């Protein structure tokens, strides 16, 4: 199966090896691993009582992210990821693709997402891997909630992610 949504961690090396196992036509495997960033700062929810300030909150109103919980839409998530892989296959001459996205509670440094693409030459593998990540960011129904000492906060979607995905629209062939 090329697409997995799971709580468990993954072994990137084993996944990369599996993409070329038993075949001699693979000349390139490009991969991406996304991690929970430890240094990310989060805007903090208003204190419950006026004047009450958590000691964990800095003077600039931010607090470090201690954990992240990923929610998703079971059923649609897998369909959306498979549709993105199908789209990539239609655009580039690539062999196998592997996408793994974790859900549940993750800590800084934990792996969140894995994408790897095998092809005959590096060009297709690199570009298809980037395309799949850009589309995953804007089309796959996952939502991140950050935890800080001051409370929880749903992560806002970033315009830069829309722009990254939009680049591929301009270059799309056949409409």
């Amino acid at each position, binding site marked *: 199966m090329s697409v997995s949504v799971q709580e468990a961690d993954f072994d990137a090396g084993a996944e990369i090896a599996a993409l070329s196992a038993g075949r001699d036509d693979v000349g390139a495997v490009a991969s991406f691993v996304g991690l929970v960033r430890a240094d990310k700062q989060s805007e903090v929810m208003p204190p419950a009582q006026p004047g009450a300030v958590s000691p964990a909150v800095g003077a600039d109103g931010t607090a470090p992210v201690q954990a992240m919980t990923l*929610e998703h*839409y079971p059923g649609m998530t897998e369909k959306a990821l498979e549709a993105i892989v199908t789209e990539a296959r239609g655009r580039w001459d690539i062999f196998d693709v592997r996408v793994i996205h974790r859900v549940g509670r993750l800590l800084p440094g934990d792996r*969140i997402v894995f994408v790897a693409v095998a092809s005959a030459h590096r060009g297709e593998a690199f570009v298809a891997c980037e395309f799949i990540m850009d589309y995953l*960011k804007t089309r796959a129904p*996952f939502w*991140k909630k950050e935890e800080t000492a001051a409370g929880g906060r749903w992560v806002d979607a970033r315009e830069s992610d829309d722009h990254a995905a939009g680049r591929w629209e301009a270059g799309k062939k056949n409409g």
Partner: protein
Amino acid sequence: MVKILFFAGLREALGTGSESLDLTAGVATVGALRDQLAARGESWSALANMKNLRVAVNQQMVGFDAPVRAGDEVAFFPPVTGG
């Protein structure tokens, strides 16, 4: 009957993740369904006020002019933030 799902910050704002509802006459699009739910007032107004609210019908993202029919699964959610 349609099954309606809510996710992430919207689910928390509404205090529920799903409900089933008989479609009212005149509610033919997911936009009309959203307006009907938002008209319940209080926390439900989040459906009208949430910036860039997204909607999916039968697990495909669609626009708010997309038709809704009995038996559909309709999901409302904020912009996605995976990866």
